Structures are given as structure tokens and as C-alpha cells.
């Protein structure tokens, strides 16, 4: 009798758990996964009230906004690679924009593919992976809607650098445009396309890439069948060029624009490498050019116009979901791959270690029908976009991959967190990292120099306090979080050269101010210098891994 009842108990348990998993399956939530390119923290829901972003603000009110979210890397390629592979740049080895998934990480199952393998119908459109359409891994999507590029309605030929100076005329739908719209010469003359440009383009919305992507995405919503869907929507904006329909530019009149502050002695307390990084137009253009041509206000206005254009389109997606009664069971996830400088630290673009580059907007909005979660929550915990992969898996109730290095944010959403390690890592080049906590940001350069900022009292990062003796304890604590990067024996700066000494293979040398070629290994072209460095290391057997050499 006893035995029987135990069997009965177990079998009922079994049936019960079977039922549970079936109902779970039926209720698997849909996910709309929105990525935005180069959107810094200039959005309403992060307190920047000058930006007009009502739709994104509304999403924040219905979910979780992470106020201390940072990117794994402050450039498109490595950031998106890290987010979609779940691995830090120091693990995957993808530090720069020269990334091709099929070549560099052929065995990695990307986040969308992982969802496909776990019963989701996965759609993609626009820029999710870095690079052109050919860089999108074949297995990533069930259906991919392509991408037109951020320059549309102009094409790449219109923006060709050779045509920009002197200005040239382009006619679209009978309307004439003088390119570049801002009248500025290209600082990055070595690039094919001149994209450091902005201005209103009075053409129909339907010619702009993000509008096209959103229309494609909304079309997919009508085809949804039984399977849960995972819809990735990659906005091109506010990546430069900052071209938008006129009405968005009119939202930000030039006389009302406020510019970021640059203290007169801004560079005084910066290490050599920081100044180099600030002044070299790696991803955008030069601050001095913007000022010289009187374009700073226009740039800020145009950037915000791009942000508002994206916001309107996000609103369209949300409305489309509501119309189809899909909000009940759909998560909306919104993030930007990294920030963007508009003159802060005299820099334009990204790829720096400062807050303006590393901090990103990040929203997680639970389905309307899910009453488990609180709404309108500002989460102050330190999180990283690398946490997306495990968090997404937990949202969907699908397995997590062992190789993922982020932390699931589900405990935060459920407010079950007791202890959360309040520190996060952003890698901005080989050997260079930012360590961010709620109070501090330490920027550690490959040559062993570093900056420290007190984010509470100095959110604009005007005062580098790394040299203050009382900060030693803080610095030593933060230094523990700098990754080891075991593939290299030494990182060295010699003048403007960056020297990488790998554990295995040849010494690499980069001239960091060589215009257009600062990413190119030039060791073969300067054998004498390589020999001098070799001899220096051989003779001195340096104990430090990161250092600079003053003279050889």
C-alpha cells in the first residue's frame, strides 16, 4: 500500500511537470530586439530632457531602464560581435571593425541562431551584425530583410570622397542637394565615403533606410504563425551621416541647441595616449574642423534629429504590436551598441574609453500580460550589454551557452538580487580598457597610463584624479578588473607607436597618428625600430606588461 502510494505520488508529479512544460512552451514570449547605432545617453529616459524621445520614454515607463549600462566595446564591430557571441573582445579576439563571423568565429553560434535552434522563428532587418549584408552569418535568421545603409536616400557613390571637395550636386526626385550638406571637407580623406555630414533632407520618409527596415519588420508581424518570434530590428541612426526628414531637424532650432562643455585646460591632466586618441579622427572627424566651419550647433541638432527619427519609428513598431494584440506576450529589448562624442574631450565619434563612449541606453520591457514584473523601474546596477545573451535566454526559457560571459539580469528584473558585483568592463582596443562602477570610471591605456574619474561629483569627466595619492586604494581595487590578455607578453608605447609583443608570432607596430593607416601593422616597414625594441626587451626583461619607452 505504501509503495503504491509513492508510485502514485511520483506519477502525478510527472504528469504535473509535463503539463507545466507544455504550458510553458505555449506561452513562450515573443521578442522584439531593437539595436540602435551610435546612440549615446542623450535620450529623455536617461534624464537628457533636450532630446525629444516620447516613444522610447514610454517604453521605459513600461519596463526597466538600466541607468548604468555599458557596452563591451565602444565600436560597432567588436561591440556587436561581443553581444551576439556572448564573449568579451579579449576572449574572442575581435577588437576592431575588421570582423567577419564566418572567418573569425566560424564555430560560434550567434544569439539569433541560438533562438532559431530553440524553437523561435527569427527575423532580422537592418544593422544587427557589423558590416555589409555578406557579413550576416547564413544561419542567423530564418528571414533577413537586408540593409540599405545610413546614407540613404543618398547612395555610396553620392558620398564618395573624391566628389565631396569641391561640393557637388545630387538630384533626387527633382530636388537638388549640395553635398556635403554641412559644407565641411572630409577629415578622413582616406575613406571611400565622406559621412561626417549632417542636415535636413526634404524627401519622403520612405527613402530613408530605417523607415524601410521598420516597414519590413511590421510586415513580418502579419505573417506570425504558431511559433514564437524573435524579431531583430537594427536601426542605422544616429550613426553618421546625420540625414533626416526636415521635420526632425526643425525640432531642434540652432539657437536653442546647447553644446557640450570643454574646459580650457581639458587636456592638461590627460596622459599622452588619451590626447592622441582624442585628437585623431578615427571614427568621425576633427573637432577643430567642426568649430572652424561653425557647424557644432548644427551637428548637435542633427544628431538629436536622428535620435528623434529613430524614436518615431520605435513608436511605429510599438503601435503595430499593439494593433495586432501582440504586446500581451512580447518583450521589447532596446539597446545601443555604444555611445558617441559630440565634441566632449574635443572628440567626435566613438572608440574612446570615456563615459560618453561606453555608456548606453538599455531597456527591457516585459509583455503587458506578464504581471510578474514591476514597471517604470530605473535599475542602477552596473550592467553590460554582454549580459544580453543570458538575459534573453532566461526571458525565453531556453538554455544558455557555456561560452557566454555575461550575467543574466533576470534576478534584477525579479528583484531577487542581494549581491551584485557592481563593476563592468569596456575594452576599447588591444590592451586598453575602461572599468566602470557606480562611483568611478578608470580608463586604463595599453601603455600603462590611466585616468580616474569620480562620476558622482564629476559626471562630465573634467578632472582626472588618478594622480591623487588618496585614490591609490580605489585604483588598486579597480585594476584588479583589468583583463589579463594572455596572448601578449607586452604592450608598449614608443612615441606615437603602439607596439604589441605577442606570446607567439612577430612583434606588431602601429603608428597611431598615421592618417588612414593607424590600424595597419607597419613592423615590416620599419625593421630598424623593431630591432631596437627587440633589443630593449631582451636586455631589460621588463617586469611590467604595459609600459612606454621614452627613448631607444
Amino acid at each position, binding site marked *: 500500500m505504501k509503495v503504491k502510494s509513492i508510485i502514485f505520488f511520483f506519477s502525478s508529479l510527472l504528469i504535473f511537470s509535463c503539463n507545466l512544460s507544455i504550458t510553458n512552451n505555449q506561452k513562450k514570449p515573443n521578442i522584439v530586439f531593437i539595436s540602435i547605432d551610435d546612440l549615446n545617453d542623450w535620450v529623455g529616459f536617461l534624464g537628457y530632457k533636450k532630446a525629444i524621445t516620447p516613444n522610447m520614454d514610454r517604453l521605459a515607463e513600461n519596463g526597466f531602464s538600466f541607468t548604468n549600462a555599458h557596452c563591451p566595446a565602444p565600436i560597432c564591430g567588436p561591440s556587436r560581435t561581443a553581444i551576439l557571441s556572448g564573449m568579451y573582445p579579449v576572449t574572442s579576439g575581435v577588437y576592431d571593425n575588421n570582423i567577419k563571423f564566418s*572567418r573569425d568565429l566560424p564555430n560560434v553560434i550567434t544569439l539569433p541562431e541560438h533562438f532559431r535552434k530553440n524553437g523561435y522563428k527569427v527575423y532580422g532587418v537592418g544593422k544587427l551584425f557589423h558590416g555589409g549584408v555578406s557579413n550576416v552569418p547564413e544561419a542567423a535568421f530564418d528571414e533577413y530583410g537586408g540593409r540599405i545603409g545610413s546614407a540613404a536616400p543618398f547612395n555610396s557613390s553620392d558620398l564618395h570622397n573624391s566628389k565631396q571637395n569641391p561640393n557637388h550636386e545630387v538630384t533626387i526626385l527633382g530636388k537638388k542637394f549640395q553635398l556635403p550638406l554641412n559644407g565641411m571637407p572630409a577629415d578622413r580623406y582616406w575613406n571611400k565615403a565622406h559621412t561626417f555630414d549632417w542636415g535636413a533632407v526634404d524627401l519622403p520618409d520612405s527613402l530613408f533606410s530605417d523607415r524601410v527596415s521598420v516597414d519590413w519588420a511590421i510586415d513580418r508581424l502579419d505573417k506570425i504563425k504558431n511559433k514564437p518570434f524573435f524579431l531583430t530590428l537594427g536601426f542605422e541612426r544616429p550613426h553618421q551621416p546625420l540625414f533626416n526628414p526636415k521635420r526632425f531637424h526643425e525640432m531642434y532650432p540652432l539657437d536653442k541647441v546647447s553644446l557640450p562643455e570643454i574646459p580650457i585646460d581639458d587636456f592638461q591632466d590627460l596622459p599622452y595616449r588619451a590626447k592622441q586618441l582624442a585628437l585623431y579622427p578615427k571614427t568621425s572627424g576633427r573637432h577643430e574642423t567642426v568649430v572652424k566651419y561653425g557647424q557644432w550647433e548644427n551637428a548637435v541638432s542633427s544628431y538629436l534629429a536622428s535620435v528623434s527619427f529613430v524614436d518615431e519609428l520605435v513608436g511605429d513598431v510599438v503601435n503595430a504590436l499593439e494593433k495586432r494584440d501582440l504586446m500581451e506576450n512580447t518583450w521589447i529589448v532596446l539597446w545601443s551598441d555604444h555611445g558617441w562624442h559630440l565634441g566632449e574631450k574635443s572628440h567626435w565619434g566613438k572608440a574612446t574609453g570615456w563615459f560618453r563612449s561606453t555608456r548606453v541606453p538599455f531597456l527591457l520591457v516585459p509583455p503587458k500580460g506578464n504581471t510578474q514584473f514591476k514597471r517604470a523601474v530605473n535599475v542602477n546596477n552596473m550592467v553590460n550589454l554582454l549580459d544580453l545573451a543570458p538575459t534573453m535566454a532566461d526571458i525565453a526559457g531556453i538554455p544558455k551557452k557555456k561560452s557566454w560571459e555575461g550575467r543574466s539580469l533576470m534576478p534584477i528584473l525579479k528583484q531577487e538580487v542581494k549581491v551584485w558585483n557592481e563593476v563592468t568592463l569596456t575594452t576599447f582596443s588591444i590592451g586598453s580598457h575602461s572599468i566602470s562602477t557606480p562611483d568611478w570610471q578608470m580608463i586604463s591605456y595599453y601603455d600603462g597610463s590611466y585616468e580616474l574619474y569620480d562620476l558622482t561629483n564629476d559626471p562630465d569627466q573634467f578632472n582626472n584624479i588618478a594622480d591623487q595619492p588618496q585614490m591609490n586604494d580605489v585604483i588598486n581595487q579597480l585594476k584588479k578588473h583589468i583583463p589579463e590578455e594572455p596572448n601578449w607578453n607586452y604592450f608598449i608605447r614608443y612615441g606615437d607607436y603602439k607596439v604589441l609583443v605577442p606570446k*607567439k*608570432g*612577430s612583434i606588431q607596430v602601429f603608428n597611431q597618428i598615421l592618417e588612414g593607416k593607424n590600424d595597419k601593422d607597419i613592423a615590416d616597414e620599419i*625593421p630598424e625600430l623593431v*630591432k631596437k625594441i627587440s633589443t630593449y626587451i631582451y*636586455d631589460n626583461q621588463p617586469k611590467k606588461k604595459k609600459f612606454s619607452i621614452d627613448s631607444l
Partner: protein
Amino acid sequence: MIKETNKPKCALIVFTLMIFFFNMTFGQEKPNIIFIMADDLGYADIGVYGQKLIKTPNIDQLSAEGMRFTDYYSGAAVCAPARSVLMTGLHTGHTRIRGNFGKGGVVGLAGKQGRVPIKEEDLTLAEVLQENGYRTGMIGKWGLGEPNTSGEPNKKGFDYFYGFYNQRRAHSYYPDYIWENTNKVKLHGNENEQNHQYTHNLFADESMNFIDRNYQKPFFLYLPVCIPHSRYELPDNGIYTHKKGWTDLQKKYAAMVTRLDETIGRIMNRLEALGIADNTYIFFTSDNGPAEIVNDWEIFNSNGIYKGMKRDPYEGGIRVPFIVRHPKKITPGSISDQVGYFADFFPTILELIGLKSDEIFDGNSIAGVLHGTKKSTDVPPLYWEFYEKDGWRATRFGKWKAIQNNLHQSHQGPIELYDLYRDPAETFDISQSHPQLVEKAKKIFKTASVPSEHYFWKFQQRGATDIYNN
């Protein structure tokens, strides 16, 4: 230096045993010699040399029962010259075949010009062994002559030959035919694009047959197998079939190495079964560094801590695994840092079988090191020259290694210098601060090589270009 892991319990017994076997050598019981050479196997593709992912239990066992060399080199960074150095005891500055293609060569079976055959006057180790009562067999990839040339294996000291004449055909693992001496043997299982007769399996079987036929006499079996050279194909991926996260190519490469390992296990078992293991020297090595890698290979780290691949002058191109086993004469599990290379093989074998010779070799006998009667010693500089790519030459003397690149342009170019003790990965070229050593390397380079009638530096000889560009 020899590190002993198993200390003999009683020195006296060892000494007596040594005398006993010393006598045996001069009796009728000359030792058998088996030389197994993998193709394009990297230094660190073997468990005892640091491989983490590919399983090689039998080769690891061979090392546990024999002596493993840490600083041993091939004769060249590619196939044919490595084999030429091995067979002649002369380095690539002296030996006949210094590249896969040269002037005065013949059209190979695959239609490529310039397969230089070894000549009558080039003395091979096999010829000497044959003359001294050894049964000699070669199974695998020869590389030193085409059919109907002076370089046929049967003309150069081998009683028995089974395999391929040159590199090209050797790297299809399911060919229509294979050579047995001078006869083409049809492989019916591979006709009409069927894949039933895998050449490595045939080599393994023929090796057993050769040993079975000849074990009562002293024999020399030269077994230069073709795996794990491309193409990457084999009947099944064995223990890697269900390996998660590996690409098919990764599985195949690992499975080819493990298959080679199994063959070595088979040979060891057969020697035990026939009761001749105690009188057989087994050598195991590779002909050069790992092949130029596709991304897939990176997980194996085939060249270990070293820089470079096959065809490179750096350690990854020429440093090879080298293991020798003779249970009665070599301290099991010993490790030697004796510096040496393939040119040593000829004089070493002569000493091992008690033959004196007036021949001058570029290598040195390592017999004393193998038997533990000699510590590792400084040897004359090792030398390599190479005509593919931009041309290079290299030398190792003591702990130093010097490399000169771009020889096709000029012989006056810069010389790189590395300290292999402090910098085994050859990261720090210290030529600038060590001018005396650079001068020494220049002297070595100046005298090491005798010009060849088949191989030229482009800047010295018009027309040489055609040979290397075909």
C-alpha cells in the same frame, strides 16, 4: 642532458647488461631499424609534446619507453629536401635535392616540371645497410626520384618499395593505383571514384607484412607515411566523430593524427609478438612543421609555443618531434635537449650497427646520447637553405639561431638573430646588439653551402624564376 625518470635499481646490473648487448651487436644480432616519419605533423601535435586535444597514446607510450628530444630539427621545411637530408646525411647546402622543384628535374607523374631525382653517385643510408646484410624496405612517400630515373627507390638501396614516388599523387588517399617496386598495382576498390582502399591502411598492412617476412634477419623499415598531410580525408573520424563544436575539418585532422598513432601501436605490438622489440630501434618524427593553417587548425596549436609553419625558417617550420625507442639500450622516459637534425641519422645508424665509414656527413652520430654514455654536447652549426617563397637560410649554433630572408633578391640582406633559450618563440631579433654573433652567422652562411646544379638564387641566375614559379 638526459633526465632520468626511471632510475636503474642497480648500476651493476645495467653495466653487465650493456656488455651483454654490446657483445650481441657484434654477434649476428644486428639491431633492426624502423624509421617512421609523419607528413606535416607539427611539433605540438603529439601528447608528450604538449598537444591537449588530439589523442596520441601510442606515441606517448613510445616516448615513455624511449628517449624524447626537445631540440630536434628536420632537414628542411618541406617534403623532398627533408627526405634527401635524411637519406644522405648531408644538409640542404650539400644534399642533391634541396627543394620540391629544381632545374634538371623531370616531369613528375602529376605533370609538374622539375622533380630532381637522386643520382647514382649520391650515397644513401639504405644502400649502405643493404650492402651490410640488412633487408631494406620503404613504404610510403619517397620524393627522391620518379620512375625510370636514377632515383628509383629500388636503385637507391631498397629491396622493397611500396607507395608513391613523389609528393603530388601521395596526397590523394584513394588513388587508382600504387607502386610496388616498379609495378603499378591497381587499387580496384578506388575505381570509379569509390573510396575503399585508404592508402594509409595499405601502408600499415604492408609494414606488418614486411616485418613478418623479414624479422629473422636484421631489417631496415623506412616508413614515411603521408598523413596528416592534406587532403584531409579518411574512412571515418574515429573517436572525434561526435566531438561537439568541432568542424568537420578539425575532426578529420585530429582523426588522421590518431590513426597514425594507432599504426604505431600496431607496429609496437607486432614487434613484441615476434619477440624482436628488444632488438629494434624505432624512430618517430615528422618531415617539417604543420601545414599553413586554415583557421580551423588554431584550436590544436600544432606548432606549440613556436613561430611559423611548414616552409618557414622559424622554429615552427623545422623543429619536429623526435622519439627513439630501444627498450634495452635507451633509458625509458628520458628526455634529451641534444641539438640535432635529420643529417644525423646516417652517421647515427652507422654507429648503432658498429660500422666505420670514411664518408663525411653534415650531421653527427647521436648514438652516445641515445645510450646514455654521452651527455648532450655542442655540435657544429646546423644549416638549412630553402628556395621557395623569397628564399632563406638559417643556422643554429649553440643557443643562437640566425636567419636570413629574401635570398632570391640578395645575400647581403639583414640577418635576424634569436636567443632560443631566452626567447624560444623567436620574438626578439637581437642582431643589432650582438654584432659578433651576426658576424659568426655570416661566416657560417658563407661556407656552409656548395652551389647546386639544380637550385639557384634568382638574383644570380636568369631563368631560375621559371623553376620556382611553375
